[in-house]
């Protein structure tokens, strides 16, 4: 049977204390975001500027990419283009082979997760060491990240301690985050110093300068990129922005939205390779130009991957990132992934109550919850919803469009519920599993109105 969000979520929630902990932890991040946003009276204006800059960029994207390429080349950067994940992986593999590279470090890049780069390279016995602490933890555990900013947020310190004890020989049962982080620091310093090739993501690429910006708190992107003889930066083509001055807008929003920090510790601006270094950029499409063609959904390409929509989402907080069974989880993932594979991800736009909180926190004003609604229409029209749901909806539509039939069914239903409550209070009734049914009154409002409406008016 197909893996769906609801099934995986049910499994996650089965451990209720852990679910509560997950929910509280992410809510805490959301609250930090609120506090940071309150610190700037111009917050809503900043979001509007960011949104408009991104709208403009999408409307002139091909020219900006050409401009970026030209400037980047002039800066001595080698530019590659990949139509899909497979091409992206091949390009990187090619560079590795050409230089006979053994030691590779990678800082966080959701794009490489999306393209499954690590798994691809593993086939050739090439090991990539993820250097972001959270990513290293999940890499040891052979799990995907569950959050695009906080990859190991589904794990407790006991889990990390056990994993590090197994892989790094840390003291058994020592759960102190300080101690565990120090162990990872020592372990990864060795990897950095020996690294021959560093892979990083890109947070922003600037058309006007041909340079790009990578943001981290840990310093792992810099440790790798400034050590290795080769640096490959991978970017989805939507990472482009027109000018350097626009970085001012985006860097003010990014960390505040993501973790509530005023800015990430390091915002590194790569312009040229250092002497003797080889610097590559891989610009990837992988479905993005298709998404650009979808008028209702192209807006999702404005995303700057801050994950504010994850942290605020009441569903994400209670179901965990893995329940979304995709590289990018959460509300934004639920509007990006159906574009990549509609059938496999048909469940995701339904993994939401459409509460709209995601749209409110989005620093670039993506109308996420409206797009979730629209994806539902597309998915139903393409026939990717459950057959039972479709039958039910058809029946409901028929019933409601015939008022007298609706009234008959309502009366009959209420009567059945009163006389034979077991008709609805049974195992087949999903509502009833953890909730009581509403009591069924003798008469509907309409019945009452016909009897009393007039009296009432006098």
């Amino acid at each position: 049977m197909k893996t769906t969000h609801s099934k995986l979520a049910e499994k996650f929630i089965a451990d209720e204390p852990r679910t509560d902990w997950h929910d509280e932890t992410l809510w805490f991040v959301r609250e930090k975001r609120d506090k940071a946003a309150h610190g700037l009276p111009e917050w809503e204006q900043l979001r509007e500027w960011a949104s408009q800059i991104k709208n403009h960029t999408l409307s002139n994207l091909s020219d900006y990419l050409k401009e970026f390429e030209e400037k980047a080349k002039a800066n001595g950067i080698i530019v590659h283009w990949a139509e899909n994940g497979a091409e992206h992986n091949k390009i990187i593999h090619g560079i590795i082979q050409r230089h006979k590279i053994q030691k590779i470090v990678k800082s966080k890049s959701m794009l490489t997760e999306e393209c499954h780069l690590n798994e691809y390279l593993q086939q050739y016995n090439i090991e990539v060491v993820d250097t972001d602490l959270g990513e290293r933890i999940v890499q040891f555990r052979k799990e995907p990240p569950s959050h695009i900013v906080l990859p190991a947020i589904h794990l407790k310190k006991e889990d990390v301690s056990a994993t590090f004890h197994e892989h790094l020989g840390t003291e058994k049962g020592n759960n102190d985050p300080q101690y565990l982080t120090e162990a990872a620091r020592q372990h990864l310093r060795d990897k950095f110093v020996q690294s021959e090739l560093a892979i990083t993501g890109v947070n922003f690429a600037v058309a006007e300068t041909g340079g790009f910006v990578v943001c981290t708190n840990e310093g792992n992107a810099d440790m790798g990129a400034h050590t290795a003889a080769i640096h490959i930066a991978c970017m989805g083509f939507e990472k482009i922005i027109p000018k350097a001055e626009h970085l001012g807008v985006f860097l003010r929003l990014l960390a505040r939205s993501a973790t509530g920090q005023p800015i990430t510790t390091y915002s590194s601006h790569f312009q040229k390779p250092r002497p003797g270094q080889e610097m590559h950029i891989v610009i990837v499409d992988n479905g993005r130009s298709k998404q650009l063609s979808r008028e209702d959904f192209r807006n999702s390409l404005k995303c700057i991957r801050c994950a504010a929509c994850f942290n605020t989402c009441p569903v994400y907080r209670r179901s965990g990132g893995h329940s979304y069974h995709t590289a990018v989880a959460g509300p934004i993932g639920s509007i990006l992934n159906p574009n990549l594979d509609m059938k496999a991800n048909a469940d995701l736009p339904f993994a939401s109550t459409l509460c709209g909180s995601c749209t409110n926190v989005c620093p670039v004003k993506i109308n996420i919850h409206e797009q979730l609604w629209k994806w539902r229409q597309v998915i139903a029209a393409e026939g990717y919803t459950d057959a039972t749901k479709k039958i039910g909806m058809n029946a409901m539509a028929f019933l409601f469009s015939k008022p007298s039939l609706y009234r008959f069914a309502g009366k009959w239903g209420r009567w059945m519920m009163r006389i034979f409550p077991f008709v609805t209070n049974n195992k087949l009734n999903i509502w009833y599993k953890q909730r009581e049914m509403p009591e069924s009154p003798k008469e509907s409002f309409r019945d009452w109105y016909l009897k009393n409406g007039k009296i009432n008016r006098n």
Partner: protein
Amino acid sequence: MSARENILNAIATNQPSLVPLPVIERNAVIDYEDRYAQFKTVLESIGGKVKLIQNLTELKKQFIADKASGNFVINAVADLGELDNQVASMQASDMEKVEKTYIKATLGVAENGAVWVYESQMQNRLLPFICQHLIIVIDKKDIVATMHQAYESIDVAKEGFGAFIAGPSKTADIEQSLVIGAHGARSATVYVVE
């Protein structure tokens, strides 16, 4: 056709019609009465240390003591003493042992406690990241209110590399518990010269 042409053509076909760029109104953006005070408050809240000094005399003394202590100390601030130029060509395996680094920053940003450092001010791109402890010197007059002013003052394309650095490296990847000292410097102290 190459991947490049395919992608660019697909984008050109699918992109919406042109909409204008917004005007970023500078007077719609926050300013602080005391930019230094704001800078200090924010930087200290994210794990950095800030010290206001009248001139470099005190810091020079500390620097000399540091050098004499036998620790591996690298200086990239001309006003403090001799520059350790050799670091420019040093390998990571050697730089790994750097205990402390002194660098000069171009400016500080009041809203977020970050400082901008050009590659030329680092001597070696890796230095401010790989050292254990980072000392940064800025002039008080060079603290600007927000990132907007910061980008007006710097030219990101002038050199091969540059970075905003805001405090020591940190992570909260284990249960959201903040730990200072992830992969980069374990401490960052900014000396602000009046």
